[in-house]
């Protein structure tokens, strides 16, 4: 089997399912509706439309429980009522990020960009092969296009497959030509593909703030509470000798995003893998806490990071 045939590159075929499932929160209907809205809604009425739909999904979708559970940890001592309104702010920002991404994909509408840690961002752009570690914040899809355009590097984004097979197939068909998206379906095949990509000078973008599905993880302490974070980026960094660049995309306002780059994390190649991973993971969690603490209102983690807190 060649790399192109790998199941990580192609979504699984959509199987026949009851028609009404496409209307569930993660169903394909809402992706199509989002595309329709991004194309048809006049920009000057967008705040109203987004405010309405953010409220709709806040009340309907199961994501609210995950966000409120995470907010309990990020903002200790906060009341459930305050967190409900904070949760609306998270949904509001998420809706804007989705809309901006869709408008870029369909109409090439670009937002304004601001950079902090620009020296570290340039280090990523000039590096020959690196790992871009980020979180579920802002519009990471949009940022990947920016990196691809500015750096000229091959960008490979690793994503969890969509839960709904029809949605997965739909997103698979609409993949952008600028960046490669691989789904972490088959971990061992994917690791080899990504290792080759880094060695060939590519940038592998991974979200390291959540363990999704059946992937290797490591114990970590985030906001003073034990949890588990993905092991993949650190194992890949050790195997490829490539640095990990923590980079976050923070939505600052309407069509305005900030790229916040942090100093690279180096995973020492040593016989004591656990100690090397632990040191790198500690650096990562410090960065993660800093960014999430400041920008909790756009941490789009709809599953609880600390499941026992749910």
């Amino acid at each position, binding site marked *: 089997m060649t790399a192109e045939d790998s199941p990580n590159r192609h979504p699984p075929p959509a199987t026949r399912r009851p028609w009404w499932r496409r209307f569930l929160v993660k169903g394909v209907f809402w992706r199509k509706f989002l595309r329709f*809205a991004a194309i*048809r809604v006049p920009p*000057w*009425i967008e705040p109203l439309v987004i*405010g309405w739909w953010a409220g709709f999904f806040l009340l309907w979708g199961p994501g609210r429980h995950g966000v409120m559970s995470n907010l309990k940890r990020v903002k200790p001592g906060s009341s459930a009522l305050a967190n409900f309104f904070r949760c609306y702010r998270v949904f509001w920002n998420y809706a804007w990020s989705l809309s901006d991404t869709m408008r870029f994909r369909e109409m090439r509408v670009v937002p304004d960009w601001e950079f902090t840690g620009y020296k570290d961002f340039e280090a990523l752009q000039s590096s020959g092969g690196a790992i871009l570690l980020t979180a579920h914040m802002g519009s990471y899809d949009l940022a990947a296009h920016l990196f691809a355009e500015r750096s000229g590097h091959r960008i490979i984004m690793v994503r969890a497959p969509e839960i709904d097979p029809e949605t997965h197939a739909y997103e698979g068909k609409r993949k952008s030509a600028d960046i490669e998206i691989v789904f972490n379906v088959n971990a061992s095949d994917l690791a080899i593909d990504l290792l080759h990509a880094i060695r060939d000078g590519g940038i592998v973008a991974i979200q390291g703030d959540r363990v999704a599905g059946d992937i290797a993880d490591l114990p970590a302490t985030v906001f003073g509470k034990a949890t588990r974070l993905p092991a993949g980026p650190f194992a890949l960094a050790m195997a490829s000798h490539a640095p990990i660049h923590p980079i976050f995309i923070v939505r600052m306002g309407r069509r305005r995003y900030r790229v916040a780059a942090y100093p690279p994390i180096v995973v020492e190649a040593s016989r004591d893998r656990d100690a090397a991973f632990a040191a790198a993971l500690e650096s990562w969690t410090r960065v993660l806490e800093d960014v999430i603490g400041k920008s909790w209102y756009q941490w789009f983690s709809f599953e609880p990071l600390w499941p026992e807190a749910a």
Partner: protein
Amino acid sequence: MTQIIADKPAARWLPARHHFALTRLIVLAVGRYLPAKMNAEHLLLAVDRDQSAIENYALSIWFLATSACYVGATLPLSLAWSIILSIPIAAFVIQLPIYFGATSAILMALQFCAAAYFATAIGPIHYVAWLSLMAFATNAMAWVVAKACGI
């Protein structure tokens, strides 16, 4: 291809980053006095006529507030209940034409028709309607001026 301006925060107030003739003229007149701080290490600003946050939020709020007033005026309820219910109803009703294919121009035409209808109504609603008609008229005049000046 969208034009990008790097590291010039004053470019935020370019008329070309605004959609409506009235706001284009306003930023042309007062843009140089508006804050333009470089609050990042590097800045990339897109020159797109729908880029202005202030313009878009202001217009969205005006459109919702005016529509809510019209809905409130038609509801056969007490003033308190009309105020409470008119906002969510208006927020929903405004979107309906979009899902049936209405464009930006059609939405504005509908708003104009509603203003023209309520301008003849009795009660405070006609002030809201006249204010909307004045906004349309001012923007139309600004459009003529902007065209004449090549803005």
